[in-house]
């Protein structure tokens, strides 16, 4: 049980990295998502390509590129910063997809009505489209957060001592491997489960009542 404080430290690092990158990734993701929903012929393929590469390559490779290849171009980052940056970039790609889908799910008439009133595009997004899109965006967004939190375990490869890393480090010293990993699992569960419940209840609240099958 004396290992517990160590685990809490790992948990704290996991929360810190995920928290920072979720906030940044959400901002960036929303920005990209909004740009993408405009269907601009120049910007869209670019964002599309970015999203494809981020979705199509393992996160560990992305982390390595940020940490080990960026230095070749003069960008030396601390492990923590590199981890947050990599998570932010990757997260923003996934969030971008969710946001685009949410915006496209708002009926076209809402765009037409608001542009007919003379609102400019930013005003339309800010006052009319996004508030409605949030209904479609929120449940998968929270679900995506859970995935990102779990993905944060990958950054242990560049020396960030987060929860999973703590598990591996501890397993070296004490025999109860299963117990260690149960604890790791339980701690992830402790962060993820509430989020999943939130996502589920948002989904229930925000989607219209339906006929039973």
């Amino acid at each position, binding site marked *: 049980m004396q290992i517990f404080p160590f685990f809490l430290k790992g948990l704290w690092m996991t929360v810190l990295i995920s928290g920072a990158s979720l906030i940044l990734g959400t901002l960036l993701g929303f920005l990209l998502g909004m740009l993408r929903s405009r269907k601009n012929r120049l910007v869209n393929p670019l964002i599309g390509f970015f999203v494809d590469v981020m979705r199509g390559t393992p996160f*560990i490779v992305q982390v390595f590129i940020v*940490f*080990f*290849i960026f*230095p070749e171009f003069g960008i030396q980052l601390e492990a923590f910063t590199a981890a947050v940056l990599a998570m932010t970039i990757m997260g923003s790609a996934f969030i971008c997809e969710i946001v685009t889908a949410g915006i496209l799910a708002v009926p076209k008439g809402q765009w037409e009505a608001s542009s007919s009133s003379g609102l400019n595009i930013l005003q339309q997004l800010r006052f009319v489209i996004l508030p409605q899109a949030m209904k479609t965006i929120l449940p998968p967004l929270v679900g995506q957060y859970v995935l990102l939190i779990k993905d944060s375990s990958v950054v242990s490869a*560049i020396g960030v001592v987060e929860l999973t890393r703590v598990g591996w*480090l501890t397993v070296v*010293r004490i*025999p109860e491997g299963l117990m260690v990993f149960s604890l790791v699992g339980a701690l992830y569960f402790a962060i993820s489960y509430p989020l999943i419940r939130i996502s589920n209840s948002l989904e229930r609240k925000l989607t219209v009542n339906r006929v039973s099958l």
Partner: protein
Amino acid sequence: AGELDEIVKRGELRVAVQSGVAPFAFVDKTGKHTGSMVEFAADMAARMNVKLKVLDYDWDGLIPALLSGKADILAADMTPTLQRALKVSFCDSWYYVQPCVFTKTAAKYQTLADVNKPEVTVGVLLGSTGENIAKKYLPKAKIKSYKGSGRMVVQALLAGHVDVGVNDDLAVLMVLPDFPPNSVRLFPKRLGDGKDPLSFAVRYDAQDLWQWVNLYFKTAREDGSYKKNVSYWLESSGWKKEH
């Protein structure tokens, strides 16, 4: 300016370790990096009169960390091979481990010949000395390499996923007390000539650092600090109580 100048100017020696290998490098109860190699690194830094920075990577991160310049010295339980030496410079070996074959006490395998058969599965650690040795001496057996610590191989053995394991005997003996008594037995004969070297590594353009590390070990052997480190960490298990 050479590598050493830069280290001194920076005031910090950055050493990459993989903290999964007690007693070479691991994280102790208090969450501190320690172990034989970490102590050597600390001593080096002290004698350079700079601070030590321990960079702790996963296996996948070790080599890139050295090559990309994140770390100055790679202090892992790595065996120098000629192929690897094409990319990095290995310093003189500072210690010799004895890779051994181990199996469940009840298993029928007795000699190397019993194990060198296609139907036998051998568990090793990815990238470790054991992996190189097993490939060399047990070419017919099926090899499964695990990632993580030496404990993984023992665990895989006891779970029945492999028939025997190959790892250096120190690492095996170290973890045995944590498993049910008498469940694992080591083959009496060590593999190879009984001695396989471990070396620190530096980038191959850092010849000044390379020489310095070699000189360091020479000095340490002479002034007894080498002996102290090795006998505390590697030749007894007294450290276990303290860390």
